[in-house]
């Protein structure tokens, strides 16, 4: 028996998956969830073998939910229309179900999953999540886990980002949050007019800068509204000047 969870905000969308699942008695539906928060809890509790996941959902998207999991399970994505997600799937040769879908198409997705499982490659990869997070809807906010709580940070609330080993420290008015991503990832995802890589280990929200002072020989330091001082390298200073129009 394999454990399955359905995560979709529309009850009829869940019911059709449930209906199609009846033909597969080896799969046991352990829970249905109406949003990503519920989904997260259910996944941690049941450790399912497979989830059916919608992308556009209340609170957090399907992708954002997967990002919060240390080891995302195998996923069959179900989506109505999402250009960016579909682009990401195509780029990574991931199977997905376009709503509405019929039983045959559903069965095909399941046998594909079975195939991948026998070769041990059924789990969602970080690469996919990386390219999915380039979608404009996801570049507006950062979802982080703070202990057991989930925090959604609108990007304009971010003061600056700081590299910290395998993590990135996201500094906000409420202190900092850690996200298991790279600086390069954030540099790529965030709006380049607002966020500037001022230093190898720092990305600044330019709207927070009050002034930039010279510091030691070739370097500068940016003083933020919060009083924080952020290092600015020589090339970073050039980028900042360009964005600020100096």
């Amino acid at each position, binding site marked *: 028996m394999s454990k399955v969870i359905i995560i979709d*905000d*529309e*009850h*009829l*969308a869940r*019911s*059709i998956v449930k*209906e199609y699942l009846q033909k597969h008695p080896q799969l046991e539906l352990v829970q249905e969830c*109406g*949003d990503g*928060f*519920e989904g997260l809890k259910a996944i941690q509790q049941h450790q399912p073998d497979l989830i059916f996941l919608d992308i*556009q*959902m*209340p*609170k*957090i998207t399907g992708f954002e939910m997967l990002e919060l999991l240390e080891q995302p399970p195998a996923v069959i994505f179900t989506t*109505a*229309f*999402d250009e960016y997600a579909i682009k990401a799937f195509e780029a990574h040769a991931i199977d997905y179900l*376009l*709503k*509405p879908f*019929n039983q045959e198409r559903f069965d095909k997705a399941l046998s594909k999953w079975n195939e991948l499982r026998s070769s041990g490659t059924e789990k969602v990869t970080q690469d996919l999540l990386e390219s999915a997070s380039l979608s404009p809807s996801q570049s*507006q*906010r950062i979802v982080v886990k703070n202990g057991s709580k989930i925090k*959604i940070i*609108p990007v*304009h*609330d971010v003061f600056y980002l700081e590299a910290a080993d395998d993590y990135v420290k996201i500094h906000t008015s409420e202190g900092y949050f850690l996200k298991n991503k790279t600086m390069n990832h954030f540099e790529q995802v965030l709006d380049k007019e607002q966020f500037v890589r001022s230093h190898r280990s720092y990305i600044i929200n330019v709207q927070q800068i009050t002034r930039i002072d010279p510091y030691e020989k070739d370097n500068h330091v940016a003083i933020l509204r919060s009083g924080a001082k952020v290092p600015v390298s020589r090339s970073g200073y050039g980028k900042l000047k360009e964005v600020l129009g100096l």
Partner: protein
Amino acid sequence: MSNSPLSITRFRVIFIICWLVMVADNIMVLTFFGLPHRAAMIDSAISNTLLLLICLMVMNTLRYYLPRGNQYINVFAICLFLTIIWLLLTKWLLSVSLGHYDGYRDLLHHSLSIRFSIAFLLLGCVTMISILWYNQKEQKENEERKTDAEKLAKEAELFKLRQQLQPHFLFNSLNSINALIGSRPEEARKMVQQLSDFLRGTIKKEETQWVTLQEELQYLQLYLDIEKVRFGNRLATDMNIDEKTTGLKLPALILQPIVENAIKFGLYDTTGDTVIRIYAGREEDNLMIKVMNPFDPETSSPKSGTGFGLKSVQRRLYLLFARTNLLTTEAKQNIFTTIVKIPQDGV
């Protein structure tokens, strides 16, 4: 304003070579007529440098002022005038600096007409080439602008079409119907009907058309009914419409995107039940419609929530009334309110 032809290295090199050839040629001719080598060099340097300056001036002026149609006679006159100025200047400078050479004044006097015609020809050539260059540049820029404008218009049209079809809404609705067919075929049939009526409404109505509030609300109701099937009892609406306003007019299809935004914002961002409240009333000469939805200030800031839908409404209102203050939003505690005012005086 385009760049001067001299901004291109190749042309700059050619220009300088031509000038050097001119200088050398001038020296040779003067030496041939018996002027000492040194005097010939000074003469050539002075006259050609002055000519060079005038050429550069003309080229630069044409950057900002390009003659049109019948103004070419003016260009001719200006060239003539500039050449005369050049000649007078050159004559004065040369006689001051080289007058002490034997027979130089005679030579200068006799060569004035030749000097004049050569300078006039050269200046004319430079002017003509510059005019051609700038004209061509301008044409190219115009063409680029035109293709850019066409591209933008095409993109806007595509976007409009896509907005009309609302693929996300459409496919999700079809998915709901698909689910209903198995379990509740009667409801599936009803939803097919509603969806068809809704789509027909979208396609039928022109963006420029004006409809009564009543018509617009009927159309809105179709949309809400479909959304209610999709989201079940999580979505409820509370309409409060002043009877005196039902005959007032508004641009077609303006309410649905506002309510859609409210639903997305309210329903997608909160997990509990959502009540969307819609009020319509008359305020002075305006029809005022308020749409309220709950939102979760924790997870969604109104700033990022007032997305695309509202922007296009704002844009339409601006195009229709040339005013930017007809659509306003406010977020108080956990209620987000969108207020739209439709002026009635011009209708």
